[in-house]
């Protein structure tokens, strides 16, 4: 009986690995392989698309991609550091609320962020390099605050005290202690932001207009608008190589970051001049972060020269911009996101269990979809599932599958720490007290995991709701999601269309905020004190 049970649990462990691996093989490796095959093989013969790669347009696009990602990263670091400092070093009323608010831009869908900047900026720069850079800073500042801030807060305050007693002046302490100690966290945050900006899609597509293209948007342009799959695949090859390099570098930096974050640092109340500095930084940062969403809401209510709900009521009526009435898009989004969340959990839970029990390789494999951009996945799906054996092109299922893949890393990342935190001794303590294995699962593991599971589901849902890069490649014209509908509206002239885009953005923002609020609350309550 004992042996039987052990065989069963061994089978369970194997299944926990097989399901995620199979899912990744079919829905990640195959599509990317399809891009490679399309770019490197023509009519069964190898064919390196040198003409595309050396083309001057390609060079310009690649250069702009690199340039905007670098500049965006530097600006984001500069914008995020003051807030990271204030939140890491000081305790003040409302700090936890501010920590949560800082995350809001990061969970906002890229399409919403881009539209918010269309609403905010004056017409002459609303589609310009500046708009792109500002949107990237707005979107990614949370990464800097979270990554650097958490590391900063975890550094032992006594190091500075020790340096002071050894005779280091305040300036020397910053130069010789703060800077080198923070360097790994800064490098890690920078590499993450760089990756996001390098693969940025929705922001560039909307704010870059026809003038500014990155590799991502050019792939979309070639594949979906000009139907030049060969050129698109060749650009995809370039993008894959660049992303792989960036992921490798960031992975290395992440490892260097290592432990360090254990100790909860000694945040203290600001004193004297610090109070002013902290207030300026916090109020200023929050004000700047609040501007784009506020502008968005205002624009959605602007009708002619006055204000009203006309753009919202118009969502109920058919429009030439879409094949369906806009409110259908909201239904579609909810439907797709629900399905995507279910798939992401079904794959992510066993994957997280496997990773938590020590399968490092799977961990890396599961993070790959995060690196390979959503638009690449969409394009890969387009190529791979266009014909038998797996023809999903006309099936609505293709959208939630792609969204689930994008959401998967978030699910795994939020579950693994929780699974690891269920201490082996908790299970042992329960067993010694007479709990059967089933009771251990029900009484100990499930309650401890309920909140992380809610957080994972919420994250998956929010990510799927806002997913644009893959969806825009795959969704059928008569099944638009909200982000796709927003994109279509923005692509058409006229106040009605812009207004509809703004209104849909507000709806999407409200949906995502509701989901984020619920899961962040679960997260805060679930955190052991």
């Amino acid at each position: 009986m004992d042996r039987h049970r052990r065989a069963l649990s061994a089978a369970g462990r194997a299944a926990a690995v097989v399901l995620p691996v199979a899912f990744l093989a079919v829905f990640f490796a195959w599509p990317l392989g399809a891009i490679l095959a399309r770019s490197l093989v023509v009519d069964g013969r190898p064919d390196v698309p040198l003409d595309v790669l050396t083309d001057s347009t390609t060079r310009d696009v690649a250069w702009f991609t690199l340039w905007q990602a670098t500049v965006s990263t530097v600006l984001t670091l500069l914008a995020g550091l003051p807030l990271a400092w204030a939140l890491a070093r000081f305790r003040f009323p409302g700090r936890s609320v501010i920590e949560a608010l800082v995350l809001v831009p990061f969970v906002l869908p890229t399409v919403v962020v881009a539209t918010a900047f269309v609403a905010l900026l004056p017409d002459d720069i609303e589609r310009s390099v500046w708009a792109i850079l500002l949107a990237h800073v707005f979107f990614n500042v949370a990464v800097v605050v979270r990554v650097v801030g958490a590391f900063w807060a975890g550094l032992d305050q006594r190091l500075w005290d020790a340096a002071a007693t050894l005779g280091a002046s305040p300036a020397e302490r910053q130069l010789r202690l703060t800077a080198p100690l923070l360097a790994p966290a800064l490098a890690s945050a920078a590499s993450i932001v760089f990756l996001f900006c390098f693969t940025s899609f929705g922001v560039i597509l909307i704010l870059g207009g026809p003038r500014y293209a990155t590799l991502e948007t050019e792939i979309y342009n070639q594949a979906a608008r000009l139907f030049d799959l060969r050129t698109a695949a060749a650009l995809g090859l370039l993008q894959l190589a660049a992303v792989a390099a960036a992921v490798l570098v960031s992975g290395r930096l992440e490892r260097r970051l290592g432990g360090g974050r254990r100790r909860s640092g000694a945040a203290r109340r600001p004193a004297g001049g610090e109070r002013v500095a902290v207030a300026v930084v916090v109020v200023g940062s929050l004000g700047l972060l609040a501007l784009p969403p506020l502008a968005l809401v205002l624009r959605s209510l602007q009708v002619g020269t006055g204000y009203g709900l006309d753009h919202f009521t118009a969502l109920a009526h058919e429009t030439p911009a879409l094949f369906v009435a806009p409110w259908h898009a909201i239904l579609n989004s909810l439907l797709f996101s629900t399905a995507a969340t279910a798939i992401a959990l079904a794959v992510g839970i066993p994957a997280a269990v496997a990773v938590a029990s020590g399968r490092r390789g799977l961990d890396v494999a599961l993070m790959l979809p995060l690196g390979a951009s959503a638009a690449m996945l969409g394009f890969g799906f387009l190529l791979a599932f266009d014909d038998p054996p797996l023809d999903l092109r006309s099936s609505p299922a293709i959208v939630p599958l792609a969204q689930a893949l994008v959401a998967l890393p978030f699910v795994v990342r939020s579950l693994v720490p929780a699974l690891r935190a269920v201490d082996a001794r908790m299970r042992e303590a329960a067993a010694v007290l007479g709990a059967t294995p089933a009771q251990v699962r029900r009484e100990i593991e499930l309650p401890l995991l309920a909140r992380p599971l809610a957080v994972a589901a919420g994250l998956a849902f929010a990510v799927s709701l806002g997913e644009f890069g893959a969806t825009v490649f795959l969704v059928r014209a008569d099944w638009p999601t909200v982000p796709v509908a927003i994109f279509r509206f923005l692509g058409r002239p006229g106040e009605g269309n812009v207004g509809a885009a703004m209104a849909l953005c507000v709806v999407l923002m409200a949906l995502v905020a509701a989901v984020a609020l619920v899961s962040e609350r679960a997260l805060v309550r679930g955190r052991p004190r």
Partner: protein
Amino acid sequence: MRLALEAIGVVIDGSSILDHVSVDVGAGERLALLGPSGSGKSTALRVAAGLQRPTAGRVLLDGADVTRVPPHRRGIGLVFQDAALFPHRDVAGNVGFGPRVAHLPQAERDARVAEALDLVGLAGTERRDVTTLSGGEAQRVALARALAPRPGVLLLDEPLGALDGPLRQRLQDDLRELFERLALTVVHVTHDVGEAFALGDRVAVLRDGRVAQVATPEELWARPADDWVARFLGMANVFADGDRARVIRPEAVRVVGGEGAVVVAADRDAAVVRLRVREDGGRELEAVVVGVDVPRVGERVAIDVDPGGVVDVRVWRPEMQRRG
């Protein structure tokens, strides 16, 4: 309930953690498992609890072989070193966990929780959040949690290890009183000689995964099995000569006024002063004296050794173990 480990062997990842460990704990007896870190004492405890499957030997409870019985059916209580309380349950939820998974009726469960909390001196704390407890309180709740299912044997893994100072002394006193009152069979793991002597009717000294000696505290102090045990118990006057060693217990070294030696150190620990005295021949001896009128460092003294406090023991060498 009587607990016996019979020739227990544990091999983990190719290295031997326990080798032929046999201890017998009578019903109502309290045994301290004493050893330095890495001696395998915690592993022995895990084997008794059923959390570690031995690679050799048997575990007996009242004569019945329970080696293959899983921990949740053994009816043994275990207190972890750092409490290991369930963070998602309050004090009552933790203490009542055992009765709950045993499907006792609610009224009985509440009574067990109240009784166990009363035993550990935390009556009325049922609704406290366990994450707000101090270290000492958490350890008491862990003890109450282990007692609530009324186990036949109680195992404690360094229960005072995470505490220090007066808190530690108080919990140690409370534990002793509690064990005596409940007449429980107790196995208690510690690396602290004083704790083992205070809480154990008998003490099993573990060394490199083997039992070096099992005896009452008095027997251990009177006749340590070998020079290693003598030193581990804190005896400094151990003089090896070939295969034999002479152990002079510190209280047998009498320091009187006179000539022939000089005091080189005097460390006071409350009423007791530990003296180190160097004889003119070069040999150093440790002695203990009490009171306030004691020799000072640098003072010339005479030494008188009580022959009753001198024991002849064998010399332990690690290779002896490997051969055996």
